């Protein structure tokens, strides 16, 4: 490579680049295109984990959104003022990365998509929220539940789901009310991501309030498939209940490795997030039985509205359309999409400010329970349900008005 020859070609390329830049500056204009309100279709944007570490959860969320679109369109769409609109969701892959999720929300804004459905997970949602705020868009969040997201004063994001702080606390409440003999000691094992730590801290606080002995907890890296050291550490103190504040991979590892290591709590295991996912029972088989979990949605939830009917109707409709039982990630997503549709209908317009105000004032009963937001945009009215795996099936055991079966206690099998 001779330097001399290199110069000439550098110039050529630079000239082309300059020409390109000038051409670009001739066309286009600052602002937004409007592709969102074309004809009789309302386009929503959704940045989604279609690949990367959260692909599994992202796909579940996408199923929930798609079911919402298909159901509403099958009913002929929905009335907005004098018009009847059909629904369409435009997906982009954020590869489970927060920075990409933020960038995609900006790109949706370019296309004039002011109404956004949330990505999967607290980190991606957290990255999308300030962008939404800046662009004057509106987002309904289906899965980002870390309480910290809602302490930053954002006004344009609304979460249909219960916040992270009640995930483990509701399990503790259920054990306190239902378990006999009442267990003495509880230990919390947590993944080290923000969401899981918030969940564990709130759970520990609740357990102390209720008079349980809370043993010193342990953490492991998020996504760990080997949690044996945490289990070995807690084994000598013989906790009655082991609560895992985890996602799927760590949740499966806790139960699997506890069996290997002979860690047998007198009461049983409880975990957030993991057990309601079908993979949990499929991979653990019998060992899954007795594990308690909290769930954002169960088929026994009270309330209904015109599009999806009751929670039982939702389950049946979803199963018929998608081919498997809906789990709570599916239901959260459908509920977020539904909240958006209801707010647009209420506002009588797709104008983002009007939709934002309609969401803030929303107070509807649905298959997902009450859709109602506090001034931070969190849904604190909706109760969190507690389920237990019995014979490989999820059985709702708490709160009492939703219970479909009795708590089996002690839960641990063998």
């Amino acid at each position, binding site marked *: 490579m001779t330097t001399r020859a290199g110069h000439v070609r550098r110039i050529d390329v630079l000239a082309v680049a300059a020409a390109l830049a000038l051409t670009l500056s001739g066309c286009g204009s600052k602002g937004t295109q409007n592709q969102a309100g074309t004809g009789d279709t309302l386009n929503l944007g959704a940045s989604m984990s279609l690949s990367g570490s959260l*692909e599994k959860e992202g796909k579940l969320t996408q199923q929930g959104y798609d079911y919402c679109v298909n159901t509403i369109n099958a009913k002929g769409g929905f009335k907005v003022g004098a018009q009847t609109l059909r629904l369409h969701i435009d997906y982009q892959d954020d590869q489970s990365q927060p920075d990409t999720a933020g960038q995609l929300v900006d790109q949706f804004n370019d296309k004039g998509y002011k109404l956004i459905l949330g990505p999967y997970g607290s980190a991606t949602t957290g990255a999308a929220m300030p962008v939404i705020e800046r662009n004057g868009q509106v987002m309904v969040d289906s899965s980002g539940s870390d309480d910290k997201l809602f302490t930053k004063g954002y006004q344009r994001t609304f979460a249909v789901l219960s916040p992270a702080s009640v995930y483990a606390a509701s399990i503790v409440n259920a054990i306190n009310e239902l378990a006999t003999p009442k267990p003495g000691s509880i230990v919390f094992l947590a993944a080290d991501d923000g969401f899981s730590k918030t969940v564990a801290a709130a759970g520990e606080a609740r357990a102390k309030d209720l008079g349980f002995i809370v043993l010193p907890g342990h953490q*492991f*890296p998020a996504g760990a498939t*080997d949690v044996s050291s945490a289990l070995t550490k807690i*084994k000598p103190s013989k906790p009655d209940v082991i609560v895992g504040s985890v996602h799927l991979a760590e949740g499966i590892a806790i139960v699997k490795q506890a*069996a*290997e*290591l002979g860690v047998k709590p007198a009461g049983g295991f409880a975990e957030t997030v993991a057990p309601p996912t079908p993979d949990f029972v499929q991979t653990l088989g019998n060992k899954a039985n007795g594990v308690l979990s909290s769930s954002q949605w169960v088929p026994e939830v009270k309330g209904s509205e015109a599009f999806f009917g009751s929670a039982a109707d939702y389950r049946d409709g979803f199963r018929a359309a998608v081919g498997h039982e809906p789990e709570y990630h599916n239901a959260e997503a459908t509920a977020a999409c539904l909240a958006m549709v209801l707010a647009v209908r209420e506002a009588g317009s797709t104008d983002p400010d009007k939709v934002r105000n309609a969401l803030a004032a929303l107070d509807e009963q649905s298959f997902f329970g009450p859709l109602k937001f506090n001034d931070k945009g969190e849904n604190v009215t909706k109760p969190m349900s507690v389920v237990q795996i019995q014979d490989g099936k999820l059985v709702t055991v708490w709160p009492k008005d939703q219970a479909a079966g009795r708590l089996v206690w002690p839960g641990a099998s063998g």
Partner: protein
Amino acid sequence: MSSFWQATIYGLLQGGLLAMIAVGFSLVWGVMNIINLSHGAYVLLGAYTAWELHAAWGLDPLLGAAAGGTAMFVVGYAVQRLLVNRIVNAPIFLTLLLTFGLQLVLVQGMAVLFTADYRSIATSYASESFGIGDVRVPYGRLLAFGVAAAATAALVLFARRSRTGIAILATGMDRTAARLMGINARHVYALTAGIAAALAGAAGAMVGLVGTFSPPDAARFTLLSFVISVLGGLGNMYGALLGGLVLGVVQAWAGQYLPGTWVNAVAFAVLVGVLIVRPAGLAGRAFYEARVEAA
């Protein structure tokens, strides 16, 4: 004290499996000076093969390991012969880049083909364990450890005793000389890659037996293979086994005596430390020069 022994035993068993994941990676690196970034994807392909066979016919993961290994031998051979051999003489970035691209295709392909569900091969025995005093020894991990040790031993025997094995080692030491001796280097390289992939595939079945897997795990297996190969030293067949055991035990001890989240930091500190002090690994010498100033 019993928790110390528990951690040690568990770490050793875990280390055996890690060794089996890494041994093929180390072989390819040692013989061809190629870092195969799609190695982790091979592990997963083996795991999916065993899982499918178990789901369809209830085949035990031990037999699944044989099937997964065979299937991956074919894949590994073909990939080397058709793709990687074309750029073996290029600067090292290129082989890295090629295998990185392959990894993207394989991982995303698996996600499409098998979905991103978490899977595990559920057997009646894998999570059961027997006790020595207070220390529990799980059957599944013991079995995986046994398979790993046997596979490594078989590899050593094959490499030292069989004509093909000696041809592989000879090609690794000096390719030009080996070719002059009438060795078909293209075939030998492909064979080496095939054997490495077969071991990875069989290890994948064992991963499915004792743990869970999903497509995004591929990168983690590749990274572990890196660490273990370096710890053990390249070109030494027992090196990977040693590296795996060391890593397993160090991680178990770190998990026991430090806050649980420090485990990985310790593993990488050991890696960098070993590289600086003994770049040829804890055991033996590598085929390829490791250092500028000779150690």
